[in-house]
């Protein structure tokens, strides 16, 4: 599904990613954890196509294609979805309209017939129910006046509607109370499919109690220092990140 090879990236000349290697197979769930400022959002943003980053080395292939050569909207049409760490408010733009435009652009790209207003409304209502999003949010401005938790729920709702093959969830669990976390996590679990890969960026083991990952990675200082299974998350929860960094330092010394 996704192959990130030796990815180096910088912003305004400052090196942020320093050789990321990551492979994500179809249907797998990966968790990426790591200290603040280590480059987790940068990686997600580069995969989704945000500009402002300079990729200085390495490559990303997605379904066998060169992802970095594609516009963000083309990536969306090919099934890439990013749930933003900080979803943007867009006053005045109808939430449902935006999604309909997105879904239909994707369908057009895939040579499918566009959905009409009635079919789309039905789809949207169904998905809203799935993530327990109140219908009143559908006709509001995109994230306009939403609380932090409502914004995160709206991101998962959008994921449900857009049906991506690769979903990057950047701290979708942050800022959620325990009930909202359960609802959002249940929503994500309902969206798990054989062919749908999910990457979750998180600081909290509690999310992984709800959504069980196949792999856990530690990203620190622009590199993936350690990968393991879900037990690694438990270890990180109790021991923090320093031991991972020390192990890395020792390894470099030995080499």
């Amino acid at each position, binding site marked *: 599904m996704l192959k990130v090879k030796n990815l180096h990236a910088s912003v305004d000349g400052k090196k942020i990613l320093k050789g990321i290697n990551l492979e994500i197979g179809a249907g797998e769930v990966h968790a990426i954890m790591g200290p603040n400022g280590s480059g987790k959002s940068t990686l997600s943003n580069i995969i989704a196509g945000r500009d402002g980053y300079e990729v200085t080395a390495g490559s990303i292939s997605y379904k066998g294609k060169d992802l970095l050569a594609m516009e963000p909207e083309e990536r969306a049409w090919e099934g890439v979805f990013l749930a933003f760490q900080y979803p943007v408010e*867009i006053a*005045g733009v109808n939430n449902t309209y935006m999604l309909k435009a997105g879904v239909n652009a994707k369908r057009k790209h895939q040579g499918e017939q566009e959905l009409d207003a009635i079919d789309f409304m039905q789809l949207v209502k169904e998905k809203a129910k799935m993530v327990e999003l109140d219908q009143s949010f559908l006709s509001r401005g995109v994230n306009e006046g939403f609380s932090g938790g409502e914004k995160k729920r709206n991101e998962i709702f959008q994921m449900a509607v857009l049906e991506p093959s690769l979903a990057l969830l950047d701290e979708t669990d942050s800022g959620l109370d325990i009930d909202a976390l359960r609802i959002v996590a249940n929503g994500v679990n309902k969206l798990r499919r054989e062919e749908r890969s999910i990457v979750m960026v998180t600081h909290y083991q509690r999310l992984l109690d709800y959504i069980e990952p196949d792999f856990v990675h530690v990203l620190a200082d622009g590199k993936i220092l350690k990968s393991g299974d879900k037990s690694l998350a438990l270890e990180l929860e109790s021991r923090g990140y320093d031991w991972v960094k020390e192990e890395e330092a020792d390894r470099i010394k030995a080499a």
Partner: protein
Amino acid sequence: MSALTLDNIAALPGNAALQTLRQQAADTYTRTGLPGKRDEDWKYTDISRLTAALGESWWTTSEPQTVDINDVAAIEDLDAYRLVFVAGRFQAKQSNIPAGVQLLPLAELLNSDAHEDAHCLFKLDESAPLFNGLLAANSALASDGLCACIREGIKLDKPLYVVHVGNSTAHVLSGLMLGANAEATLIEHFVGTDSSAASLSNIATYVRLQDNASLTHYRLQLESDKQLHVGRVEVKQARDSRYTLHAVELGGSLSRADIIINLSEPGASCDLNGLFVGSGRQHIDHHTRIDHNAPHCRSRENYRSVLDGRSHAVFNGKIVVAEGAIKTDSAQSNANLLLSKNAEIDTKPELEIYNDDVKCAHGVTVGQLDKNQLFYLKSRGLPEDEARQLLTFAFADEVLVGMKIKAVRRFIEKEAFAKLPNLSDLEGMLT
């Protein structure tokens, strides 16, 4: 420049006393002339384009014309009293005057000597804010207009929809008075039919609101491409009265409006909303002036412009808070979106505050579309052009949401968005 002469005004309506007022106004014009670049209030707007395009012909109201209002792009599905002016003259047959209110075309009123009331509209106060020669010319040359008095306690059941069909030189002078507790909506719609014709619309509208009266005023400028438009709206507000303006600038080659609000008694409030959509080489200029002359008055001002091509907009918002106007509550915002690198905006908030007990907020932004919003939409699959269009429309629409009459809002959205790169169906796009 030669003077306005009696020849220009002899044929205009009004008795001998009014002819004298007209002549005085003509003399004032002769003395002041057109505003020039040396005039601070006209620094960015070159009115010499008027004489360049029309010579001295702008002094003369065009010949009467016949236009069928059904051939004009008027607002559809609007339940209103329609009052039609063509080439600056009232068209009785195409109009529908409400019963039970005093409402007459100015020319008719002037021709019946009994109503010298209307003469006050012709008396010029040269010390008034933003006074200029064009206003003097309007007094000298006004051919017609609308005079209405909505008496105390009357709530007009439907809006007054005044359609000015342009492409002709017209000097139109209107007066609207609302008695205590009266309520009304006035829609002034300026529309052209011939995109190759250049003439002048010189429009002055005086409004007086008595205690607790409320007027909502839509001023919709959709003249044809080459038309020059100058306007003045002067509002005097008594105690607790409310005035809401929705000013929309879409048409014409050069359009200037001076909006002058006098909050003269305690508790009065005004809301000024403005939207400019400029393209090509359009020039749009609003100078607004709000005088807080009494305590506990409130003013809100929200102007936005979307400028494409080589269009140039000017916004000057002056707010003067008098010494005794304590507890003034005032806020002004002006946001501008430049879609092309050749589009230009000159914006200037001006606050003059003569006491300490006031709340005055103001803010100006000039910029392009927000990159984060653009990325968000694209990441949801919207093509770049569509995402840009959506954000542009949403930006403009923010000032239209306050329009309570849906038919007007839909009409303006359609007309405004049609001027911009337009890719998809608007249905459901905005909240």
